[in-house]
Every structure is written in C-alpha cells, then in structure tokens.
C-alpha cells in the first residue's frame, strides 16, 4: 500500500470541507477523482501536500507506512509526493532551472544521495523537456510568470517528470488545455507511469481519461467519496452529470 487515507476530516477557516475520506492507493495504480465544483478535490490534494491553511481535525493518512500528517510539506515532497497545482503560482525572478536544480538537490540531500552536477542536470532536463514538448526558453524564464494557462500546466508536468515522484497528484492539470496540450500532458503522465509509482488525477472531464486510463474512478461530493468504480464510471458521469449520485446518497 502506497497511500492509505482513513476517515479524513479537514477544515479551512473553521469550515468543514473534508468529511470522512477513505481512499487506498497502491503502487502501479492510477486513480481519478471527479466531483462537482467545491466538493473538496483541491482541498484533499492540498491536505496531502501539507498546506498549512487546511486543518486536519480527524482521521489518518499513511504514506509508505509513514504517518504523512506528521511530515512537513517539504519532507513529503522529498519522500516522493508531488502536487501539480490547479493554479500554479508565479515566482517572478526564480528561473525554472534554478527551481528544479535546487529541488533535485534538496531531495537528494534528504535521501543521502550525492548532489547532481551541472552537466548531468542539464542533460536530464533536456531529456525531460522533450517528454512534455516544452520550449527551451521556458527554462530560463521565471517560474510560470507570464506563462499561458497551458504552459503552466505543461510546466507542472515537466517538473513532475524531473522530480520523478512516487505519488503524483494532478489537480485539474487538464482543465483549459487544448487537445494538443492535453495529449502532451497525458503522454507525459503515461510515460512516467511504472509499477513503482501511482497517480491521482483530479479532473472534471472524461476527455483526459481517454488518454490516461484510470484503474479507479471516485466521485467526491461534499467532502466524501460517494461512489467508486472503474473507468466506465467516468463515462457515465460525463453523460449523466453528478445529480443522480447526489440523489442516491440522499436516498
């Protein structure tokens, strides 16, 4: 078991958003989380990444057997968790290269590995860039500053490719992408997939799931997973919307 979420409750600004999440993710799996706006998808992603605005009030999360909630956000990243943000922040003045070099070396330091030298780093970067069909010039530019929506999302996937996480959480990485960018993002995810890692994709659209085929689809509503199924659930959701599930829950 890579990730085990047990009866997780979380608040933001005193408001209860997550209300008893249970989810198990094994290595090699892809999970899709869908659900209406405001249902708590990003909140779940942020809680897993360790955002301090979200207060866990109940429940437990184990990652690789460790109590995840006790780890600082940076240690979670160093342990192999990666969050691709729904709205990536801009970091004026911090170049993409600088960000990634620092990140790679901080992660290596934590793991007791040697620092990567500049030549190896550059080579690795070049290779990963091809994977997401990213333009060279974006490397020298400030992280996400002045990037188009699509470029930002691609940049998140590029960072993921560089950091090679064990658990990647992609929060609506497909939203707002044109079909070409979507294909690039999906290819990136698919190519990085292995028996040793797992991915959680948060999405509104079945479209992405044509490319990234999930093993499980979960529906989040009002802070709870109200339905889980295989990839066919996504198709059903796209056709019928979420109302039929909500009704079922009430009933």
């Amino acid at each position, binding site marked *: 078991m890579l990730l085990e979420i047990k009866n997780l409750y979380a608040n933001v600004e005193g408001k209860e958003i997550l209300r008893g999440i249970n989810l198990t993710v094994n290595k090699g799996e892809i999970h899709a989380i869908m659900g209406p706006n405001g249902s708590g998808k990003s909140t779940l992603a942020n809680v897993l*990444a*360790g*955002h*301090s605005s979200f207060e866990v009030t109940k429940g437990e999360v184990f990652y690789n057997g460790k109590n995840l909630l006790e780890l*600082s*956000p*940076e240690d*979670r*990243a*160093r342990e192999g*968790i*990666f*969050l691709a*943000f729904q709205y*990536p*922040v801009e*970091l*004026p*003045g*911090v170049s993409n290269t*600088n*960000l*990634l070099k*620092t*990140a790679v070396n*901080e*992660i290596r330091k*934590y793991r007791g590995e040697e620092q990567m030298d500049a030549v190896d780093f550059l080579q690795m970067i070049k290779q990963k860039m091809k994977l997401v069909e990213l333009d060279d010039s974006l490397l020298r530019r*400030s992280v996400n500053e002045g990037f188009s929506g699509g470029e930002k999302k691609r940049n998140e996937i590029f*960072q993921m490719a560089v*950091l090679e996480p064990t658990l990647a959480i992609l929060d609506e990485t497909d939203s707002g992408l044109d079909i070409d960018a979507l294909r690039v993002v999906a290819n990136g995810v698919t190519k990085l997939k292995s028996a040793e890692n797992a991915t959680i994709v948060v999405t509104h659209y079945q479209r992405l799931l044509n490319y990234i085929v999930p093993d499980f689809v979960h529906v989040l509503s009002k802070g709870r997973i109200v339905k889980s199924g295989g990839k066919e659930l996504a198709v059903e959701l796209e056709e019928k919307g979420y109302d039929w599930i909500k009704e079922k829950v009430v009933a």
Partner: protein
Amino acid sequence: MSDILEFKNTLISGFAALEKSLNGQSKKAFHSVRKEALTKFEHADFPNIKNEEWRHTNISPILKHTFNPLSDASLLSSADVQKFVFGDAFKYVMVFINGKFHPELSTLDNLPEGLIVKSIAAANEENNTVVEKHLGKYALSDGQIFTALSTAYTFDGAFINVKAGKVIEDSVHILFITDSRNEKLITQPRNLFVAEKNSHASVLEHYVSLQDDVYFTNAVTEVVVEENAFFDHVKLQEESKKAFHISRMEINQKRSSNFTSHAVSLGGIISRNDVNSKFNEDGGECTLNGLFMIEGSQLSDTHTLIDHAKPHCNSHEHYKGILDDSSRGVFNGKVIVRQDAQKTNAFQQNNNILLSTDAVINTKPQLEIFADDVKCSHGATIGQLDEEAMFYLKTRGIGDDIGRGMLLHAFASDVVKSIKLQPVRDYIETILSRKFNQ
C-alpha cells in the same frame, strides 16, 4: 539646540581653515558662491521630524558627534584601494579618499577624446566653462542645510563631461573611500556630470569605507543630460553600518534625453537620499530604480521627485526594500505633472518586504497632476514573503530557509537585473547570493 549650534560652529570654523588651504582658488569667482552658501548654511534649519520632508527620519543622532571637515591626508596604498575596484572591469577609475581626489591611485590614462574626467578642483583651476556654467545651478542651497554645506565646501569631487556627439563605451568608476580610523570625519563629495548633446556615457558612484567607523558623508551630485544624450548612472552605497549618509542628486534633462539611475543602498546607520529629476524640455525619458537592504537599527530614506514640466516625457520608477530586524525605511515618491505636460507617462512602484515584525516602512506616493492627457500610475506594497509561493517551493522539496532565500533573492534581483554595468550587476548579485545563502 546647543548641539545644532555646535554642529554649525565646527563647520563654520572649518570653513576658515578651508579658505586658507584653497590658496589661489579662493580668488576664483566660485569662491563667492562658497561664501554665500556658508551664510545659507549658517541660517538654515537643521531638519527635524516636525518638517514634513523629514517626518520619519530623525537625523538628530548626527548631532551627537563632532565631525572634522578637514581631514589630514590619508595614506592608502593601491592595495587598500584594490579591494574596492572591480578588477580591470572599469577602464577609468577615480579614487577619492576622505573627499580628496588621488590621481596617483586613479586610472585615467588614455581617456578618449571628448571624455573629460577630472576633479572639480582641477577644472576650476583651469576656469572650465562647463563647470562655471553648471556647478551649483541645480542643487540650490536655499533652506537646504546639507546642500549649502556641500556648496560651501566644494573643492574636489568628480567632474565628468562628455562632449557633444561622443559615445563613450567604457564607464567611469568613481570611488569614494572614507578612512575614519583616526577621527570622525565629514566628507563632502561634490559631483557634476554633464552629458552634452547626442552623447552617451555611464558612471558608477560608489561609496565605501575602510572600516566600520562613525563618519558622515554629505554628497551632492548634479547631472545635466542635454538634448538626445543618454546617461546611465549607478550609485552603490556600501558605507559603514555606523556612518551617516546624506545625499542629493539633481538631474536636469533636456529635449529627448535619457537618464537612468539605479541606487543600491546597503550601508549607513542613517541614510537619506534625495533624487530629483526635472524634464525641462519635451520628450525626455527618466528611469529611477533602487534597492535598499537594511538590518539592525539602520534607517534608509529615499525621497524622489520627478518634475514633468514638459509634454511627452516618460518616467519609470521602481524602488524595492528588504528590511530586517528593527530597521526602518522611508520611500516618498513625488511626481508633479505640470499643466503643460500633456502626454506624460509616469509610472511608480515601491515594493517592500519586512522580514521582522519590528521592521517598519513608511511609503508614500505623492502625485500632483495638473495636466489632463496623462497616464500615471503608482503602487506600493508592504508585505512578508508570499506564503503561497513558499508552499509551492515546499511541495518541490525546498524547505523554509532556502525557499526564503530564493524568493528574497528574486525580489531583489528584479531591480538589479536592469543595471547595465555588468561588473556592478555581477557584484551585487554576489552580495545577494551571499546574503540569501544560495
């Protein structure tokens, strides 16, 4: 009160001694300007916080010291000087020690035709007409105690004159070193830069000290940028952390001229910088950028004034501050757009980061707009580091210390990266890297 009297008396009696040492120069026409300025100094008020222009900047600590205005010659070797120059990145270097020009330590060989670099004293000696025409004409002494003092004591100082049509690729490094090891000094660098029509030049004004001593720098710089000339100015203030630094720069711009200034202020227990630029004719372009980084109980105050007196001029102003510990910062950015000055563009930004809850910044834009067809904007921010940015870095495995350093470095670099003098830019980048531990 008696402190002020004593402060004045020391400088007034110092003036008598200066006069004696001037020899022939006291018979030149400029000497009457000195004497007149001394009278103005005598009658000017010493600024206090009741004065709106000095509201947040209490400079009375200056009065607790007695500063000698006439230091004995300091004997520094070229090795002492070497650590302040940027290798041989600058082809021309003017070295001043305690306000006195030292040709033997300077590098002014093979000046190109059309570039005049000499001390004001030397220029006065030969009755230089450009100096006669401009010196003291823009930084007026009335009611300005420190300018009056500077003018009264005008002797050495840097005079740079680029003749019409000359494009000077190499920059001049003007280095003011204070050696205050023996006694507390007041040094008064007085500079005049005149870029004539269609000329192009760049200058670094650099303030350093030999040690972390108490002293007082009172600097006045006048800049004239004539028609279609381009003048690029960098001021790097690395005074002792115990020093007082009061400076004033007056920029006078003619038609279609372009003036750029970057002021990087790091030193001084109290520093006050007045930068005033005036568009006297149409079509000028003025950029005033600055960065101050202070800590401990340092106080850094910048007052800028851009006077859009004529139409079709553009001004861009961006100042940034990083304040740690219980340091205090002041930014006052005044922009006047006069009735005639249609089609003015004036943009001003001031962004500050407070690294400690004890640090304080007072920032105030002051826009006075009397024309209607203008584009003006201003913005000021005061804040801590962006929490969301910090979180983003953390999710990439970058912890608090390094993340903070990266963001602060980026914040500061923003101003530094537009410095055109590469050796200076690199040098400041090194300071930033060291400070923000990357």
